[in-house]
């Protein structure tokens, strides 16, 4: 065994332990004897966080929040109707409670009283309605438009907000936790999208796009057990080495998106902790199921058997992730199909499916760029090398990163893509797998899948719902046009001085974008 092999083995073993810990933290409650004594959260200090994202073109407009930098700082500045708790359940934020009609079509949210904006104005149901309406309608420029499109009507009713949907949706309150849908102050039924006001735990002091954000604690914040830091400084450090150096030299306390190629070096640095969280983020290779040869399900199956998933997790994610099973649902999600057979690298089965499709060999082009996901080009090359054993010749086409989502994604028949994952199964399937959905990247249109999706959405019986979701996952894995080889953990790092809750949110990076208000200085 060469040194190189040893290193890789060590890494993936460590990675396995790490993700096991993260899983435990996300799902299980450890017995008190095992639980590490955690310092109680306390107030004070200035937290400095460096993000890999952030752009000079960033805006305060909630329609445009496209990177973890703007999303995190605006989640600290604002509240949403609901919040996804670290364990994945849903809790109220601006909404104190909510209830659905029997068909899950009408939802009534009771708005919390006594919450104020930083300007001193009270948060009213009218503000909530105006904030949601900003993302709806013909004129909407919002990336969240497809989420709020099913809303037929939204109106204030006393201290309540009543939402009527075009069809039943048992998961609707989860949608209201989306980071775009923050509550902003309104006047005459309109919000000012560029306002600096907010109702969250931190008041915006300065915002220099692409450089930094400074915030101070909101003294009137309604949550007593949140927002521990007195001041917050967020920096945009796009260069991976500069970000890691900033952490090592003590210029910042926390960094997001650790570069996986050098994570071993970061772990050797004293006083630094690497924090991997297994979540729903997954990397995919997607086929256009309308176009030959991908219109033949046997070809799709052949490609799914021709990829070595474990190798990708080991080499592209350095062990910080899990193998995927061609379903966009994370293992920790409640309706994950545990009985679905895990696909593994099997050139014989791939050959069998090719033969079924009437082919001896297959020549395809795979379009990749690192803007699809970090390491997409290398992953494409590994895919190509392994698939060759099954008679599948994949020509990896390196596309420009600039403009990838506009010119390659959903245009080229076979390309790389990624999904940050969605908090509910319904949302993930509706956004990217339902026939005709705007982001259905494989253009897959399965009648049975569509029926089940609509039925499960309004089904309030848990067992029936589970059965439907399991069948949908089966369809997705065995007929769908998306190869999902790996789920990538969110890998962050922080210094010893930073206190982290026992359970860290896995729905998005940075503790579900809420590290700023959930973490503290130990």
């Amino acid at each position: 065994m060469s040194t190189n092999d040893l290193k890789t083995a060590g890494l993936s073993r460590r990675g396995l332990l790490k993700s096991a810990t993260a899983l435990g933290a996300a799902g299980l409650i450890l017995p008190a004897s095992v639980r590490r004594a955690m310092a109680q959260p306390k107030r004070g200090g200035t937290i400095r966080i460096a993000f890999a994202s952030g752009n000079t073109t960033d805006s305060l407009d909630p329609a445009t929040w496209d990177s973890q930098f703007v999303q995190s700082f605006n989640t600290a500045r604002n509240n949403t109707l609901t919040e996804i708790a670290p364990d994945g359940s849903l809790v109220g934020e601006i909404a104190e409670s909510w209830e659905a009609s029997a068909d899950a079509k009408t939802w009534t949210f009771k708005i919390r009283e006594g919450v104020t904006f930083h300007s001193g104005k009270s948060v009213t149901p009218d503000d909530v309605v105006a904030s949601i309406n900003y993302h709806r309608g013909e004129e909407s420029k919002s990336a969240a438009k497809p989420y709020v499109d099913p809303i037929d009507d939204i109106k204030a009713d006393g201290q309540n907000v009543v939402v009527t949907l075009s069809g039943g949706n048992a998961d609707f309150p989860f949608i209201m936790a989306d980071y775009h849908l923050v509550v902003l102050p309104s006047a005459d039924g309109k919000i000012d999208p560029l306002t600096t006001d907010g109702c969250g735990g931190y008041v915006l002091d300065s915002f220099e796009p692409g450089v930094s954000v400074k915030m101070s604690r909101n003294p009137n914040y309604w949550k007593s057990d949140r927002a521990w830091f007195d001041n917050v400084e967020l920096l945009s450090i796009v260069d991976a080495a500069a970000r890691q150096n900033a952490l090592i030299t003590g210029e910042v306390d926390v960094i997001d998106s650790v570069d996986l190629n050098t994570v071993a070096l970061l772990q050797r640095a004293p006083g630094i902790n690497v924090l991997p969280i297994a979540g729903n983020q997954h990397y995919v290779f997607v086929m256009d199921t309308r176009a030959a040869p991908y219109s033949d399900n046997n070809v799709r199956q052949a490609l799914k058997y021709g990829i070595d998933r474990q190798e990708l997790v080991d080499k592209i994610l350095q062990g910080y992730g899990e193998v995927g099973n061609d379903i966009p649902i994370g293992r920790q999600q409640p309706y994950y199909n545990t009985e679905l057979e895990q696909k593994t690298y099997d050139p014989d089965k791939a050959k069998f499916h090719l033969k079924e499709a009437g082919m001896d060999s297959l020549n395809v082009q795979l379009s990749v760029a690192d803007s699809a996901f970090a390491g997409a080009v290398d992953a494409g090359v590994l895919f190509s090398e392994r698939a060759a054993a099954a008679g599948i010749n994949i020509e990896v086409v390196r596309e420009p990163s600039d403009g990838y989502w506009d010119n390659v994604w959903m245009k080229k028949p076979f390309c790389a893509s990624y999904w940050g994952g969605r908090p509910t199964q319904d949302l993930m399937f509706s956004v990217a797998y339902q026939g005709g959905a705007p982001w259905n990247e494989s253009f897959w249109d399965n009648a049975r899948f569509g029926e089940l999706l609509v039925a499960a959405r309004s089904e309030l019986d848990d067992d029936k719902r589970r059965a439907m979701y399991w069948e949908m996952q089966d369809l997705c894995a065995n007929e769908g046009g998306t190869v999902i080889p790996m789920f990538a953990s969110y890998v962050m790092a922080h210094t010893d001085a930073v206190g982290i809750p026992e359970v860290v949110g896995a729905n998005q990076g940075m503790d579900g974008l809420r590290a700023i208000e959930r973490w503290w200085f130990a």
Partner: protein
Amino acid sequence: MSVVWTMIAKRLGLGLLTLFVISIIIFGATELLPGDLATSILGQSATPETVAAIRKELGLDLPAHTRYLNWLVAALQGDFGTSLANKRPIADLIGTRLGNTLFLALYAAAIAVPLSLMLGILAALYRNTVFDRAANALALTSISFPEFFVAYILIFVLAQSGLFPSIARMDASTSFGEALYRTFLPALTLTLVVTAHMMRMTRAAIINLLASPYIEMARLKGMNPMRVILKHALPNALAPIITVVALNLAYLITGVVVVEVVFVYPGLGQLMVDSVAKRDIPVVQAVALIFAAAYVLLNLTADVLSTLSNPRLIHRK
């Protein structure tokens, strides 16, 4: 002296024409890039309706020449408009960043220009000695490495030991001394990158003159070699040296985006790159014009100084 004034007036006029042509080229080039602001801001989340709504609001659905003329008319009145992406006035976006860029450029130049002139003169004086070879080898080595590599080496040696900060963070409250300290590593990186060019030009220009008869004469008089170079050779070698210094100063203003990224320094380069990536054309135009103006003005300054250093050009018959 009237020769100089005529030249300045002519060159400024030509400079304005250059800026105009550059604005057309930049606009056209940005138009040629695939996609526009709407698609690049929405990225993976784009739907045809939202893209159309953004285009309509920002007037991106108008034909290209209409948009260019609208921009030109406003720019001629001194209004560079607002960023399409975040609606901030471009003057605000550029203001502090231009200050930062000029500060770093001047800081690096204040180290690099005296250093390279001195090394160049000494290398000419002691040419073909160990000193000359060593200075040349070092300068060529540092210019041959990519900038980011030089930067990483400096961070590894000087920042990880705690001597200097690895990121050059500055805000309005940073004092001048503190700013010098915080930006020392980026300034040093740039110094290492530009020194070789200026030093070797100084050396070559002086050595070129040392074969002239009037230098022979000075030597035969028994003059001290240092005095020969400073008093007799250097004034006649100034023109090429000034040109090279001006070119390098222009580079320090316009070409340092890699150093800005590595040291997280908020300068114009980063703004330009981000704005091109997001197709935020008004910002791209404004920054490109600043860069072009820097080249035009520095070249003009170099020509004026070269003319002044040469009596034959001033007192033309």
